[in-house]
C-alpha cells in the first residue's frame, strides 16, 4: 500500500491541491496573527516546517509502540517537545524574531496542521512518505505565509522584507498591517486561489 504512493504527487499536493492555508484552512491563527510582514511570515513558516517535519518523523517511527487509545496525547507530547526546542533555539539565536512572533511560538503546539498530519498521515504511512508529506505540507505553509506576509507588507507598509520602495512619508494602506487587514487580504487571496484551482 505505502509503496504505491507517487512521491512526487505526495510532495506537490501540500503546495497546491491541499495547500494547508488556502484550501484546508489549517493553522489559521498563526497565518493571520504573524503575517504583518514577509519576514515574520517566513520565520513562522520555517519554525512550523521544522516542528512538522520532526514530529512526522518521530510519529512515523514510533507509531507501532503507541496504543491507539492514547495516540492523540502521545502525539501532542511529541509535538510539544519539538516546539519547546524551537522556542529555545529562537530565543538564543534569533531574539528579534522571538520577540516578533511572541505568543505564537508556543502556540505552534496547537496548530491543527501538525496534529492533523500526524493523525491523518504519519501514523499510517512509512518514514519516507511521512518525510515527503511533511516537506510538501510545510513548504506549502511557508509559501502561503510568506506570500500573505509580503502582500500585507507591500500594501500596508510599502516595503518588502523591510526594503522600502515608496517615499518615507507616502500614504500606504495601513489597514493591511492592522488586524482587519489580515482577514481581508486572506479573503481575496483565497478567492483568487479558488478561481485558479477550479480552472485547472
Amino acid at each position, binding site marked *: 500500500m505505502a509503496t504505491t504512493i507517487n512521491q512526487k504527487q505526495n510532495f506537490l499536493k501540500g503546495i497546491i491541491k491541499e495547500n494547508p492555508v488556502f484550501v484546508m*484552512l489549517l493553522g*489559521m*491563527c*498563526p497565518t*493571520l*496573527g504573524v503575517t504583518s510582514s514577509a519576514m515574520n511570515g517566513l520565520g513562522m513558516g520555517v519554525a512550523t516546517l521544522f516542528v512538522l517535519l520532526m514530529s512526522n518523523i518521530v510519529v512515523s517511527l514510533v507509531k507501532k509502540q503507541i496504543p491507539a487509545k492514547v495516540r*492523540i*496525547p502521545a502525539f*501532542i*507530547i511529541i509535538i*510539544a*517537545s519539538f*516546539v*519547546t526546542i524551537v*522556542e*529555545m533555539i529562537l530565543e538564543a539565536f534569533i531574539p528579534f524574531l522571538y520577540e516578533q512572533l511572541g*505568543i505564537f511560538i*508556543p*502556540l505552534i*503546539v*496547537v*496548530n*491543527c496542521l501538525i*496534529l492533523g498530519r500526524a493523525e491523518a498521515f504519519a501514523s499510517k504511512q512509512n518514514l519516507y512518505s511521512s518525510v515527503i508529506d511533511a516537506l510538501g505540507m510545510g513548504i506549502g505553509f511557508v509559501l502561503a505565509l510568506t506570500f500573505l506576509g509580503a502582500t500585507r507588507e507591500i500594501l500596508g507598509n510599502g516595503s518588502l522584507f523591510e526594503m522600502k520602495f515608496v517615499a518615507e512619508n507616502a500614504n500606504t494602506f495601513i*489597514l493591511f498591517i*492592522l*488586524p*482587519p*487587514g*489580515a*482577514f*481581508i487580504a*486572506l*479573503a*481575496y487571496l*483565497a*478567492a*483568487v486561489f*479558488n*478561481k485558479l484551482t477550479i480552472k485547472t
Partner: protein
Amino acid sequence: MDYIIILIAAVFVNNIVLAQFLGICPFFGVSNKVSTSVGMSGAVLFVMTIATMVTYLLHQYVLVPTGLMYLRTITFILVIAALVQMVEIILKKVSPSLYQALGVFLPLITTNCAVLGVAILALGMENASLLKATFFAVANSIGFALALILFASIREHLELADIPKGMKGVPINLLVAGLLSLAFLGFTGLV
C-alpha cells in the same frame, strides 16, 4: 477598577479572536448556526477558566520554584487536554443534545489556541494573582463568545445573500470577519 479595565480590554479592545487571532479554528468551524456557537462559547468559557486557574497555580507553585519554566508549553497543553476530556465526559452525561450539537468540535478545544494562549498570556499580566488570572480568562471567553455569536448571526443571513461564485464559502467568511474586526478596531484607545 483594574478589573473593569481588564474586562473592557479583553472583550472590546484586544478581542481575542478579532484582534489577537486566537481561536480562529472554532470561530470559522462552528459559526454556521447561532445555537451551536452559543454551546461552543459555553464550553470554551468553562474550559478556559478552569485551564487558566490550574495552569496558573502549576506555573507559580511547581514550575517556577523548581526552575522548570521551559516545560511550560508541554505541561500546559497536557492539562488542557485532560480538562477537555473531562468536560466531554460530563457533557455526554448531563446534556446529550448539546454533546450531539458540538460533536467533533469539543475534542478540538484542545487545539483551540485561545485556551492555551490565554493561559500563557495570563502569566504575563502586571502584578498577576490567581483571582486576576481567572478573571482575565472569564473576560476573554466573553470576548470569544461575543465575536463568535456576532459572526454566526451574520453568517445565517449570508445563506440568503447573492454572493459571486469565487467568493462563496471561505473568502466571504474571511471578509465578514475582516469587517467585524474593522468595527472592533473602533474601540482602540478606549482604555
